[in-house]
């Protein structure tokens, strides 16, 4: 079982990202669950969402405490939230940032593990015209982890976004292109 924790700010679509990953996994015949950090979410406030993907039935209703993958949708979050908390050895941290590797590792308290970085805000502004980074970050997530097939994620995007799907798919594709992996 692979566990994912997504950090975002209310309105950036962390919950939607979590849902799209789970929907893609379920549609490719795996077991998955997605759920938000339950609460009265406010626009701009730090929020979390969780995903589990497994080949077997998932029988867990607790939050994700030891993620294999952490996805951070907002560049300012690593300085105010401990995003690497509980991260499993060998796990991924996937960041939206324009900063270089060294600065980011320092920002993460000397984090030595696997790191994926993409300037998702820039891509989202250019492709979508909005600083909503969820679908862009899914591109970085795909490139780093390959946890779900791109085909199923595209289908899930089409189903969710309708006529806006093309732009979101384009943002995702550009993120796949531009994400840098530091392992």
């Amino acid at each position: 079982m692979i566990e994912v924790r997504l950090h975002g700010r209310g309105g950036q679509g962390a919950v939607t990202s979590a849902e799209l990953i789970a929907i893609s996994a379920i549609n490719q015949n795996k077991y998955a669950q997605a759920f938000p950090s339950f609460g009265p979410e406010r626009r701009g406030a730090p929020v979390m969402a969780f995903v589990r993907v497994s080949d077997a039935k998932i029988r867990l209703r607790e939050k994700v405490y030891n993620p294999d993958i952490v996805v951070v949708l907002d560049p300012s979050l690593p300085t105010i939230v401990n995003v690497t908390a509980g991260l499993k050895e060998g796990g991924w941290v996937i960041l939206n940032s324009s900063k270089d590797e060294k600065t980011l590792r320092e920002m993460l308290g000397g984090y030595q593990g696997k790191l994926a970085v993409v300037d998702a805000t820039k891509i989202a502004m250019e492709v979508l015209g909005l600083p909503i980074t969820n679908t862009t970050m899914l591109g970085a997530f795909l490139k780093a982890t390959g946890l779900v097939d791109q085909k199923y994620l595209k289908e899930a995007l089409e189903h969710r976004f309708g006529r806006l799907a093309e732009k979101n798919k384009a943002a995702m594709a550009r993120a796949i292109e531009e994400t840098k992996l530091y392992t």
Partner: protein
Amino acid sequence: MGKRVAKEVSIAIADAVKLARAEVIAAYPITPQTHIVEHLSELVANGELDAEYITVESEHSAISAALGAVATGARTFTSTSAQGLALMHEILFIAPALRLPVVMVVANRALSAPISIWNDHSDIMAERDIGWIQLWAENGQEAVDLVIQAFRIAEDRNVMFPTLINIDGFTLSHVIEPIELPDQEEVDAFLPPFKPKYKLDPRKPLTMGPVGVPEIYFEAKKAQDEAFKNTRRVILRVWKDWAKRFGREYNPVETYRTEDAEVVLLINGSQAETAMTAVDKMREQGKKVGLMRFRLWRPFPIQEFRKAVSKIPVLAVIDRALTPGGVGGPVGTEVRSALYNAARRPRVVNFIAGLGGRDVTVEDFEEMAERAAFYLKKRPKEAYEMIGVRES
């Protein structure tokens, strides 16, 4: 055959209500029930569900309108949570006494104060004695299945009792997971149209709910109690039929790895799944731990329960509600009472966990099983112990 889809449990519940061809929905939105009734209102507005959606100004009105609707012979659904359920309180008792088989989903949430929108079982435990058939779902699939079954059970002429399904707020209601939704034809074959013997009809006037003078009230309540206990037979029959048609089994008391178990955890609702994972882990370590949960909470399945626990040394009942100043949590108290005169009974230890959205983790279940094992040799001194609460 039904199709396996990725769906939020609340949305799947609304889809199940549609598959059951509900004719009236009267509801007032409240977190965490909201997505259920929002989706139902969409289905009605889109013309996908041919039903009357009655928007009301409160939960008191929601349940009142629902009872009026079901009294006219319309298949009726409502849903609520916490303060909303509490606001329904006085009307909830009227439904079973008038034998009005409305179906309700309760997305369980803590009662205020402090204000909490998060999950525990204090809302439904305050409504134990309303006289409704009460069921618990553990996951999205069960929630969907139970909603469809609930209409058939409630509306059976040998039942005619309101029926509610408990689903954990957020920890179940807001989760996307794989769910198999049955086909419409399959549901139609399972669930016949609602045809009550008596209904409100201006062409054939009758009175529902007249005064019960002292000469008749007691007999009316006895009749209600007898009829309520008799619903068990129908419930079991419906579950048997469901298993035959859909391959998923439902039992009044569900057990998991309880054979040869020395300690059995008992918890209702979705967190029983977390407990299963804890049981698997402990079994791997050679610990003889099992799990049980009530599927049917009212009428209390005393025969099945006594049988299920007859060989268990220690039963650890995990309550997700408090009975302030009482002798245990609501489930713990009930279980002890059910076993007091049983020939063979386990030692019962009662834990309170997960109030107001506090997570109950695999580790918490391991801790409870460990503490419970301590009572294999000793009687518990305290009425209950709290787990997962900060002491400083």
